[in-house]
């Protein structure tokens, strides 16, 4: 009996801490990576490139939301705040003082982190729905501030000044979407790598623990409030990068659009559809919803403006009925368990 136990313990120690994903998953990943790298050559025209840039961007934004909701269990309805801060931080210093948007991107991350602390410290003590309502209202308030703030263009917004002297320094590529595409791809890759790392770190484990059982987490030495704020900060910084990039991509900042609740809701829908709390769920959600809304806009024109929202509604209802944990739950769970059982 005792030696049996000792042997099992020895065996268990030799198991991989993180089971290697099955071969078909690795194959699928490699094929996907190759496809993404070659995408601008497979689809040389502008529109499919534009759609994919948005997919990548929203994949990061949804992932950022997923860090707060999926990992730490707090539903934020104000994530557009960080998106807007990122866009303005990269553009205002550029428009006013000619400072490269790269610096602005860093400023945006710092400001978003500060905003996340300022919002998170008082609100993350609220449980569940109250946090959601608080973030929704704060989001709307921030939008109103930017719509009234003359220095940053108030309601009419800001244009990014055109500068053709140094495309990489000023992040402006006139005439081709390909550099934008690869930048979006790099941002998405960095964002997903970061979250992949996070999920396997001490912090990631602690967040998942407090998401499921805050009391048990506290009994194991986890400072629940502090960790929630930390997740909110990381998330806000990710969202800010996406906002900085988006501003330079569309070249115009409209507070109505940048701080809109639509953005906060979109990232929620994508994550829930794909699988909240999973690594790839937000990307799957973005890859389904963005093309749908972009193409429905073309097919139906102005008359079909809200068709995509109807389809979203139906999709979300279906997911909630049959796969409440999202599309990824179909097989993420299976791969994790199969990997673990190979002993």
């Amino acid at each position, binding site marked *: 009996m005792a030696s049996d*136990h000792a042997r*099992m*313990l020895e065996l*268990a*120690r030799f198991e991989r*801490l993180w089971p290697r994903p099955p071969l078909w998953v690795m194959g699928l990943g490699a094929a996907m990576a190759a496809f993404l790298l070659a995408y601008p050559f497979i689809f040389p025209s502008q529109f499919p490139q534009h759609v994919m840039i948005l997919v990548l961007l929203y994949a990061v934004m949804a992932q950022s939301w997923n860090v707060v909701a999926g990992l730490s269990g707090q539903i934020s309805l104000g994530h557009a705040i960080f998106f807007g801060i990122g866009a303005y931080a990269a553009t205002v210093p550029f428009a006013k003082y000619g400072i490269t948007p790269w610096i602005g991107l860093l400023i945006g991350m710092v400001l978003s982190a500060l905003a996340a602390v300022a919002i998170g410290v008082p609100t993350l003590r609220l449980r569940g729905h109250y946090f959601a309502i608080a973030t929704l209202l704060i989001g709307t308030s921030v939008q109103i501030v930017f719509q009234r703030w003359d220095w940053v263009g108030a309601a009419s917004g800001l244009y990014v000044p055109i500068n053709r002297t140094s495309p990489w320094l000023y992040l402006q590529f006139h005439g081709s979407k390909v550099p934008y595409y690869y930048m979006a791809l790099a941002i998405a890759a960095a964002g997903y790598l970061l979250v992949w790392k996070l999920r*396997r*770190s*001490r912090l990631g*484990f*602690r967040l*998942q*623990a407090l998401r*499921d*059982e805050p*009391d*048990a*987490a*506290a*009994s*194991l*030495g*986890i*400072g*629940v409030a502090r960790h929630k704020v930390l997740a909110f900060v990381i998330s806000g910084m990710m969202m800010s990068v996406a906002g900085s990039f988006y501003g330079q991509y569309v070249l115009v900042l409209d507070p109505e659009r940048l701080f809109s609740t639509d953005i906060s809701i979109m990232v929620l829908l994508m994550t829930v559809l794909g699988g909240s*709390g999973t690594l790839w769920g937000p990307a799957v959600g973005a890859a389904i919803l963005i093309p749908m809304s972009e193409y429905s806009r073309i097919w139906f024109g102005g008359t079909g403006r809200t068709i995509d929202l109807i389809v979203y509604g139906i999709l979300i209802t279906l997911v909630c009925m049959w796969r409440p944990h999202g599309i990824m739950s179909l097989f993420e*769970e299976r791969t*994790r*368990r199969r990997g*673990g*059982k190979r*002993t």
Partner: protein
Amino acid sequence: MTLLLDVKGLTKRFGGLTANADITFDVNAGEIVGIIGPNGAGKSTLFDLITNFQPVDAGRVFLDGHEITGKRPDHIAALGVARTFQKLKPFPDLTVTENVIVGALARTADMKVARDQALEALAFVDLLEKRNHFARELSTGQRKRLELARGLAMKPRLILMDEVTGGVDQRTIPGLVDLVLELKRRGVTIVTIEHNMQVMMRISDRILALYAGRRIAFGRPEEVRQDPAVVDAYLGATADAA
């Protein structure tokens, strides 16, 4: 013997109900102290007060001579106080090993070290076989072992165990009791809440008996067993008839 936990006059009221009234007891290092009492006697509330999951209305708690009253629960845990919950709280979407890793991470930031410590704790509670299952797939008895392993992975000085044998299949009780005794041998100080009197009398060095939120006896098992107040509380009707 050195004093590890010193509880002085803990009081907690919920509206008109006094769940704990002026409870005083102490625990020496290396000792097992059992807490007994009928349902609603205030046993679990006492654990919540010691670990500050609920704020105390009056009274003070000392760990190793330092006051911990009102400290945040995670700070108290970090000082080496582990606890289990009467209403079990495993992390359902993590695997068994991952659950225990969370406990081990209280002492180390190295995932590999935490994993190895988690496996040792799982081996100790005899749950290694289930290590790659999700916590939600375990039976009640297995979940109790899981919570114990999770707390032990923190390498605590003191563990507060809330009804480890409650709601568990009768056949697994002896195994759980052996675990508790083995823990004591390893130098962990234990405070345990139990309904099972036989178990309590056998394993405890001292017993604290509560009734309706009050301390009615505190002492060695044989003293407590013969204490008139305890006999009255447990066998009140019979005693009256006699």
